[in-house]
């Protein structure tokens, strides 16, 4: 067997994914994605939620099919789950009725590995990942961090060449995530894991910079690689290192680039067909207050404010503020608009009033709902009407999410009310 040091593990050419929507207009989730992964590389896919990066990971894992383009794993097209590709899930995806050992052995059972060898390999993987002594425990007896260790052991035991990580640390608390990440990088750097390459999906910019050799930044609507950033810092990487900070800043800038608002592409769709993120008004006012307060005083570096709020996924919140014109985003910085400044110091009633004006003025769907309600004699309209209307532009789930977002904003703003039971929008809440 010839051994090549920089063997190409994965090769994606022009991969796209299109989902049909009930409205008939197909939605492009991934467009023309190019990606090559060499051995000894950790590559990160960085993007906001909904940018199709998880979809891409599932295509590579053989769990979904691309609508177009080629996916090749070590020179052969991927046409279903391939031997040599293993995945670690955000939700751990452990079988609660199997013990730690049995969970780890599962992949080997599927390959028909004989019991004795199965047991030996599983114990070795458990040992490696630091779960020694927990072999006969059930997942529900363990903490989140321990559970994800099972997830790693289960993936490693099949001796994959390529390890896919789907936001593996995002369901863990900050401290646990840090420990697990460090342990993983230790094993990786020492070459103690059988894997040749790692592909990690994340929305956490610092995590990407901590772990990856290369980071591909995804735009959303449709998902596309908009930038490739190489990280040449040696492991272990230090968050306080100025070079590290600079890279994080660059990535924040890339992810929020092109700041003239409202710019196309932040939220998929336009007009009333815009897919809105389900961000609570608490988070919105929380971010405004944080930026208004010292040390930021109205203008903040996104990574800094993200850290001070302990919020890894701050970009959608920032973008919603931008949509409502309470803030401007530029090059990884967020700056409150005069309206945002005013909002920060206002009383609750006044805040609601401001929020209502901005909502109705800048969010087309809110204005649309309000107009329909004003026009109708009883000032009532069924939610299904808007759900159907939205489904002309987007998928059913997106439509539901958008409606949920607009309902929560509309309720806070007292712009309109919703009788959830009857599924009817109206102008006034029953008093």
């Amino acid at each position: 067997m010839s051994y090549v040091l920089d063997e190409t593990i994965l090769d994606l050419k022009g991969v796209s994914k299109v989902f049909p929507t009930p409205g008939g207009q197909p939605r492009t989730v991934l467009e023309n994605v190019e990606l090559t992964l060499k051995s000894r590389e950790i590559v990160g896919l960085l993007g906001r939620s909904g940018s199709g990066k998880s979809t891409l990971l599932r295509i590579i894992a053989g769990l979904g099919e691309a609508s177009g383009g080629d996916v090749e794993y070590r020179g052969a097209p991927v046409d279903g789950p391939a031997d040599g590709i293993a995945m670690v899930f955000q939700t751990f995806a452990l079988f609660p009725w199997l013990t730690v050992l049995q969970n780890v052995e599962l992949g080997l059972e599927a390959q028909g590995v004989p019991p004795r060898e199965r047991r030996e390999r599983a114990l070795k993987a458990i040992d490696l990942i630091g779960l020694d002594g927990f072999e006969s425990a059930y997942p529900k007896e363990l903490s989140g961090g321990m559970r994800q260790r099972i997830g790693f052991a289960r993936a490693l035991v099949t001796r994959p060449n390529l390890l896919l990580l789907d936001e593996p640390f995002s369901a863990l608390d900050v401290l646990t995530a840090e420990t697990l990440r460090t342990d993983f990088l230790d094993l990786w750097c020492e070459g103690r894991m059988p894997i040749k390459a790692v592909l990690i999906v994340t929305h956490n910019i610092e995590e990407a910079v901590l772990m990856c050799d290369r980071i591909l930044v995804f735009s959303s609507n449709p998902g596309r690689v908009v930038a490739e950033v190489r990280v040449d810092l040696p492991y272990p990487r230090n968050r306080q290192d100025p070079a590290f900070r600079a890279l994080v800043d660059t990535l924040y800038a890339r992810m929020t680039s092109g700041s003239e608002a409202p710019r196309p592409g932040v939220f998929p769709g336009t007009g009333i067909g815009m897919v809105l993120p389900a961000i609570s008004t608490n988070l919105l006012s929380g971010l405004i207050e944080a930026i208004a307060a010292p040390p930021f005083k109205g203008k903040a570096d996104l990574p800094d404010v993200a850290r001070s709020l302990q919020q890894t996924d701050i970009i959608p919140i920032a973008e919603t503020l931008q949509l409502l014109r309470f803030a401007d985003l530029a090059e990884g910085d967020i700056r409150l608009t005069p309206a945002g400044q005013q909002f920060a110091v206002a009383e609750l009633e006044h805040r609601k009033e401001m929020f209502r004006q901005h909502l109705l003025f800048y969010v087309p769907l809110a204005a649309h709902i309000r107009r329909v309600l004003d026009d109708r004699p009883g000032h009532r309209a069924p939610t299904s009407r808007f759900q159907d209307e939205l489904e002309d532009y987007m998928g059913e789930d997106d439509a539901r999410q958008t409606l949920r977002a607009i309902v929560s904003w509309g309720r806070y703003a007292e712009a309109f009310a919703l009788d959830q039971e009857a599924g009817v929008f109206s102008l006034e809440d029953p008093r």
Partner: protein
Amino acid sequence: MLARGFALRPTVVNRWDFVAVPLIFGVLVLTVYGLRGMDVPLGAVERSAISLDRAELPLYALYTTLRMFAAMLASLVFTLTYGALAAKSRRAEMILVPVLDILQSVPILGFLSFTVVFFLSLFPGRAIGAECAAVFAIFTSQAWNMAFSFYQSLRTLPDDLQEVSSSFRLSGWQRFWRLEVPFAMPGLVWNMMMSMSGGWFFVVAAETISVGAHHAMLPGLGSYVATAIAARDLAGVGWALATMLVVIVLYDQLMFRPLAVWAEKFRFEQTAGYAAPESWSLRMLRTSRVVAVLRRPAGRWLRAFATARWLVPRRRNAATMISPRTLDWAFSALLALVCVASAGLTIRFVATELDVREVVRVFGLGFLTLIRVVVLIALASVVWVPIGIWVGLRPTWTRWVQPIAQFLAAFPANLLFPLAVVAIVRFHASPGIWLSPLMVLGTQWYILFNVIAGASAFPSDLRDAATNMHVRGWNWWRRVIVPGVFPYYVTGGITASGGSWNASIVSETVSWGDTHLTAAGLGSYIAAATDAGDYPRIVLGIAVMSVFVTVFNRLVWRPMYAYAERRLRIL
């Protein structure tokens, strides 16, 4: 501490072995003994060889129990195949699910007359035919809800576990035993227990088979009671009741309880922290060394069985099976044709002897029975909901009352019916009114124990909050606890009302010796037709009852259930 289960400990017997070994071998010997006694010529059974000798009772109890387990086994096999088929094939789903829905609400006792004829002709001259008919009758009372629960579990498999299974390329077989069956297990076990409870009622009814010219008395507790009733032997009925009591307690301790505790480990919620129920027999099976030694090869074998690489998924390009719309249409059209044809056939069959006036009359009888069901379920609710809540909020009481309620639900209430006849005759009461309570005699307990379960699951922080805000009296009932237990009440109510319809077939006509009491209603209509072997009337009666049950479920229980699911489910 977390013990390492695979570390081999020296195999020494412990005290549990002295319980486990005799028990296990006892069960084995009894099974063989019982099975041998069942294969006899039919003549022996038809000549009514039931002896009222008290010493025969344990043997009869054994026969009855074996029938129950045979039916449970059949139901399990049916569930795993039918449910899996319905969940995995879209086309099969189109037929199987509606069929199941109807079968669930059809009066099972009505089936008896058809299946008896079928099975008797299958094994001419052998009692095994009658046995099969009885087992089948019990099967029809057990299988549907189990299959439904399994199907629903398969439809709600967690996405991530499905993805893991595909990404490891588990074979279809491995997936079934590693993912699908375990995930469905808690629901399945719960439904098995419900089915068993219902089953005792039917086993008692199914052992004395008499359809037209066919009379068979299978040796068992049910026919013992029937014989005792015919002979007006009150003490005999009493002894049979006592035996039944023992059997149900044993069944609860040796099977029901350990199964329920064992199934806990398949619960998908990834949180630990609530007290798991206890079962001494499961502890015995887990602790006994002898069992452990026997279990090791069995475990290996089972695991090899579950992990066999059968039905390996095909690669994608080989498996691109497109289901074209035209095929769907053809399928639906065929289905509609079959439905229309069978409906036509049924109508023609019924119309050979009966006319529209008869149909109208039967619907009238249906309304009489409907009124009974509604009034009695309402009465039972008024009585048992407050009591259930009171008990459920007091853990010490719950621990005592809950098993009793479950026991009462399992106890075949039809064994008690003769006592009602004695009482009604003694007090010259009207059978039309006083036979009615028999319908809910066995089924009201479903309401009680579901409400108890609901009240004990009611979150203590909500209770504390209510106390803290001084919510008291009527307001507390209306705003706090009743909405809290409502979803549970509806579950119990559905079971109770379905059971009551079924029970009407045996409770509207009751005898004691040669005293026969009848209340006008759909149940007694079906019972009379079955006795006379009048098939058009049986078909008509069953059809009308199915219509009543289905419509009632759709119009009353289904909306209530949907409402409870939507608004009142406490997460």
